């Protein structure tokens, strides 16, 4: 299931503004990769280029290659819709569909993609994914209630269940805990640890302790100055990055000297 991502020479623009420049890296399959860096360094933008969400933003455009197990996501004839079905995403703010019940939120992606025609099949999938998101016990008695009635942390786990329900190869998480309290954050981190056996996970985070806790590998992004494009400074095993980074800027950032 989990697939490998190889990025080479990737540059992304917002209109005329260059947001990130010339990024080359590998994302290992079945592991958690964390992106860290100061605000505006383009880590979220980079994340969004990995499932072609960047081009949804008006003026958004990308140069370079992103290979998913050797298939270029930006190659000719590649359908962005298929890409997004293969590479799921969890957003900064929990965003369950407000007009849908908890059940329907999880079922939404499956229905769109024409899976699980029978009710029993769908029930099973919904339960499986809610269990997978450590949410089943909390919501099993109120599946028909609107998803917006849950707490922030529960909503975010619901969104994770919604994303996993379509069985993606890769799960991208854009600061999934930044809007949550510490207890909910812990629940999500547990969940990430559990999910990495099945998915390649990439997580953008502001919180360095979080990166250290959940990730196997960490990539540090930085920008030369405000208005300059963000760049990848280094990527290495998380332990290495946090104990003995090879670039001075990384150490400065991690030790809290800036950012």
């Amino acid at each position, binding site marked *: 299931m989990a697939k490998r991502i190889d990025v080479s020479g990737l540059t992304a623009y917002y209109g005329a503004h260059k947001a990130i420049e010339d990024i080359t890296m590998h994302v290992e399959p079945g592991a958690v990769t964390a992106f860290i860096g100061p605000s505006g360094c383009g880590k979220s933008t980079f994340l969004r280029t990995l499932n072609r969400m960047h081009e949804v933003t008006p003026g958004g455009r990308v140069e370079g290659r992103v290979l998913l197990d050797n298939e270029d996501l930006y*190659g000719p*004839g*590649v*359908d962005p819709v298929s890409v997004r079905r*293969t590479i799921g995403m969890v957003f900064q703010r929990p965003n369950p569909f407000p007009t849908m019940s908890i059940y329907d939120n999880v079922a939404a992606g499956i229905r769109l993609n*024409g899976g*699980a025609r029978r009710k029993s099949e769908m029930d099973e999938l919904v339960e499986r994914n809610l269990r997978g998101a450590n949410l089943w016990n909390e919501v099993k008695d109120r599946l028909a209630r609107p998803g917006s009635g849950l707490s922030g942390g529960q909503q975010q786990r619901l969104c994770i269940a919604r994303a996993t329900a379509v*069985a993606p190869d890769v799960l991208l998480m854009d600061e999934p805990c930044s809007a949550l309290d510490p207890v909910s954050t812990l629940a999500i981190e547990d969940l990430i640890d559990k999910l990495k056996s099945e998915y390649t996970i990439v997580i953008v985070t502001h919180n360095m302790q979080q990166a250290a806790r959940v990730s196997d590998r960490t990539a540090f992004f930085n920008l030369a100055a405000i208005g300059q494009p963000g760049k990848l400074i280094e990527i290495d095993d998380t332990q290495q990055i946090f104990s003995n980074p090879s670039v001075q800027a990384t150490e400065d950032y991690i030790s809290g000297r800036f950012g």
Partner: protein
Amino acid sequence: MSQTSHTTVKSAPAAADVRPKTLRPPRLPRWSLAALLLGSAAVGVAAGLLGGLESRAQWGLIAALVFVVARFALTSAVEGRRQAVDRLAATLVWASFVLAMLPLASLLWETVSRGGPGVDWYFLTHSMNGVLSWQDGGGIYHALLGTVQQVALASVLAIPVGLLTAVYLVEYGRGRLAKAITFFVDVMTGIPSIVAGLFVLSLWIMMLDLGYSGFAGALALSILMMPIVVRSTEEMLKLVPGELREASLALGIPKWRTILKVVLPTAIGGITTGVMLALARIAGETAPIILLVFGNNMINANVFEGAQSSLPLYVYEQWAYGTEAAYDRAWAAALVLIALVMILNLVARGIARWKAPKTGR
């Protein structure tokens, strides 16, 4: 569950059934759209010629229908049902846009092409005094004069009330009264103009027996204008940042002067825009004018006494005569009216753009 799906393999439905098999699903070539367009146009023409259909609209309808069906079938066969539905939706959305633009383009075209030849200096500077309905000649001077006077008078009545009401709602209004006013201002925007006319008719003409006049018409127009002014002013005042008010109040300037000297001037651009849009709206009103101003072929410069005319009423009257000469005058007057309304609109938007609230973000 953390042991992944292996443990539940028996009962677990293959989650992979929603996984796309490839990132490169089959796609129709790009030229297929152009080919489809041409092909369905050809079918439309052929069907029209063979079937002997006279109306070009029917040709177009057939072509459009063929296009929609063929595109859906083709996409469905090659790219799958989801893509086909997506394409169908896009086609319908574009079609509704085109469909809506047709009558509107036609309306503007007809007005300009039929009205254009009739508009000249003579037309603008003469009344209909002594011109019979089937005769050529005559003009709209009396109607223009009436419209300008009535609209000006209506604004004099409506703008102060509208502005002050908006000020009340934004700066003072709390509780039930403000809520009631807000609600009824909204409802008031929906009053049919003829009802406003009937109201003034029953009060001014039937009860007080004051006779037809431009002023009676202006009364009805002001009723139509007030809620629009309130609404737009309210929106603009809400955009004025609270810090501005506080800064002024902190200097010891009384609230009412703060409103007059700080709040209103800050919002003046937007307020002017709203007022001009309201002017454009009431300048085209016909129904209350029929009931209250009555119509007059001669110049009556006294807005307070005796029947007058107005531009929209003039269009209606000329249409009602039903002669070719009168139709020509109706179109020409319609063109002048449209031009007037459009100029008011454009100026209003121009002001809005210039004086866009400089409050930053």
